[in-house]
């Protein structure tokens, strides 16, 4: 039972992070390698708002979510928009540069000191019993938030005008533009939503354990989950996260904990050999990569 809970928590972490990779890729065909840093920035945003609005945790959480959304939109408006029309590789390299810049800026503003946003918010993180297993309160929230985010994204992309425009822009940007869809607005929204979901993941991870600059590596570990599922599929990101986390937790428990770092990449390699476009991806999308 405890193993199932551990798998669910890790899958929720990977799923929440990896949906940002998918949102940006399926909309703009750009692989954001600054996603881990943007996730970490979201967590530092929460720490800052928790300190600024001491005693008002809901306001602090709301403000940090808005900040994450705005940061994502700004990243597109100020940086990635200029990459429109350039080679995909140039855009990817731009995100790498952005990541390096953000890492340096975070140390400059917040130092390398480990922080505890949950304490700053005034909340505690007691364990909760689920049958014979235990889960921390924040981990439970993380699972629920992940389910809510995926359900919300499904509804948004399926039933709202902006969501349908976003899908159209992802499928055929030229045709979408000819039909009057403002691509820059769609791309900015995709970056905003991706940074928001990544930021929420960062906030929840930081609340569950602590906020530390090594968090950026967690962002990278979620990347194989997105690829295993198929980089253009949100459902794929969810299933990929489950597959990767199950392999990781089971191998930690039954084989060797040292395998935990390599398992996601081993699963990815196996997937690339058997089905290079991922579980729910399409061949056409792979050709574009």
């Amino acid at each position, binding site marked *: 039972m405890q193993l199932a809970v551990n798998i669910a928590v890790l899958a929720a972490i990977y799923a929440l992070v990896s949906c940002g990779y998918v949102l940006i890729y399926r909309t703009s065909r750009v692989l954001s390698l600054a996603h881990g840093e943007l996730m970490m920035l979201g967590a530092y945003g929460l720490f800052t708002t928790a300190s600024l609005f001491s005693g008002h945790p809901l306001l602090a959480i709301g403000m940090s979510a808005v900040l994450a959304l705005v940061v994502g939109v700004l990243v597109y408006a100020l940086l990635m928009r200029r990459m429109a029309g350039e080679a995909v590789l140039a855009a990817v390299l731009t995100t790498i540069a952005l990541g390096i810049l953000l*890492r340096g800026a975070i140390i400059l503003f917040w130092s390398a000191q*480990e922080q505890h946003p949950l304490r700053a918010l005034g909340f505690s993180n007691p364990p909760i019993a689920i049958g014979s297993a235990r889960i921390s309160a924040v981990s439970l929230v993380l699972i629920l938030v992940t389910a809510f985010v995926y359900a919300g994204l499904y509804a948004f992309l399926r039933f709202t005008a902006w969501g349908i425009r976003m899908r159209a822009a992802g499928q055929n940007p030229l045709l979408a533009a000819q039909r009057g869809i403002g691509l820059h607005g769609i791309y900015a929204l995709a970056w905003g939503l991706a940074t928001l979901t990544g930021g929420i993941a960062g906030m929840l991870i930081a609340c569950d*354990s602590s906020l530390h600059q090594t968090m950026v*590596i967690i962002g990278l570990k979620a990347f194989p989950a997105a690829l295993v599922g198929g980089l253009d599929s949100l459902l794929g990101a969810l299933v990929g996260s489950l597959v990767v986390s199950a392999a990781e937790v089971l191998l930690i*428990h039954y084989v060797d*904990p040292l395998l935990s770092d390599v398992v996601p990449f081993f699963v990815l390699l196996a997937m690339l050999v058997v089905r290079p476009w991922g579980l729910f991806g399409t061949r056409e999308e792979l050709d574009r990569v």
Partner: protein
Amino acid sequence: MKRWLLLFLLSASPALAQEAYVLGLSGALTGPNASVYAPVVEGIKLYVDTLNARGGVNGRKVNLLIQDNSGEPSKAAADVKRFLTQDNVAMVINTSLSSTYAPIIAETKRARVPLLFAGAVCPKEVYPPADELQFCTTAFTPGYDSRMALTAIQEMAKGPVRIGFAAMAIPIARAEMEYAAGLARQKGMTPVETQISPPPAPDYMPFATKLKDANPNWVFSWSPWVSQVKTFEALRRLGWQGNYITIAHIPAEEELVRLKDPGFIVYGTNALFQDNQPGHRDIREAAKNAKLSYSVEQMAEGWIAGIAIEQALKNAGWPVTPEKLVASMNNLKVDLKGLREGGLEWTKDNHFRARQSYRVYRWDSSKNAIVRLRDWTEVK
């Protein structure tokens, strides 16, 4: 960071360099492990700034050049080459990961300049018979730390000890856990499980689950702080009720207060600030006028290195050469004003310290304060 950059730019002036003692520090100010090393660098800088405000050493200012190596060997190599070929430093200081040691040691040996490990784990070359150029002020050290932890467990345990080990997946920590497991067997304890977690893990529960399933009543961890404390917190969330002993790295004092768990026991060579020794009061006084990025409780390790550096320069006189500095460091004895037991003493044969003693602390819920479980205990 800005102040360090400014200091670096100012120190590049040849006129200033000629009139001051010039030292080069290569440290992990950024990168995944910066939280372990950056406070030490800030502590050394705090001491040097205070020293210069007092007039310096032998009437000369101390010009501390600081470079960030991010814990990367290639950057550390570039730093030390620059220090030795452009800045003509009298001493190189390393405050970084053990992976940076090889290039720094190689370059300082070639130039025959003394190398001080400050806040970076002491290499075995500083133990007797010591390498002629390598010295260490760092509190934590392999071998000694495990011996102390197991001695403390043996005395605190009320029955048979089933011991688990937790470490980060870095070579030095894994080797230390293997050593500790062997030592535990010799002491009649039963090692039940060793969990090695990567740096960092998104969730420590999978690692803690396996550790808890082995049913230890004690767990010993010797690793970077983040790994030590997160494994402990994950164990508690799983309902584990045993005792957890771990080396008191730089954030230990603040973390004891945050966790408020009597089963979380830390031990270390540096006295905690709650002991309020004269050395702690000196640090607090110096910190009043400094804009620190880290809390004053994290300054002791760097401050101790600063005391040793001052004494070494003082004895070496002016003008200083690496040879004179090595001779001075080979015969060094400083009073650390209660920050450690017995001060710091180096001889030609021993560049570690003459005595290695530890204090053991934990949180006491009834007193709502940190309490000392054991006073200074020497480990041979």
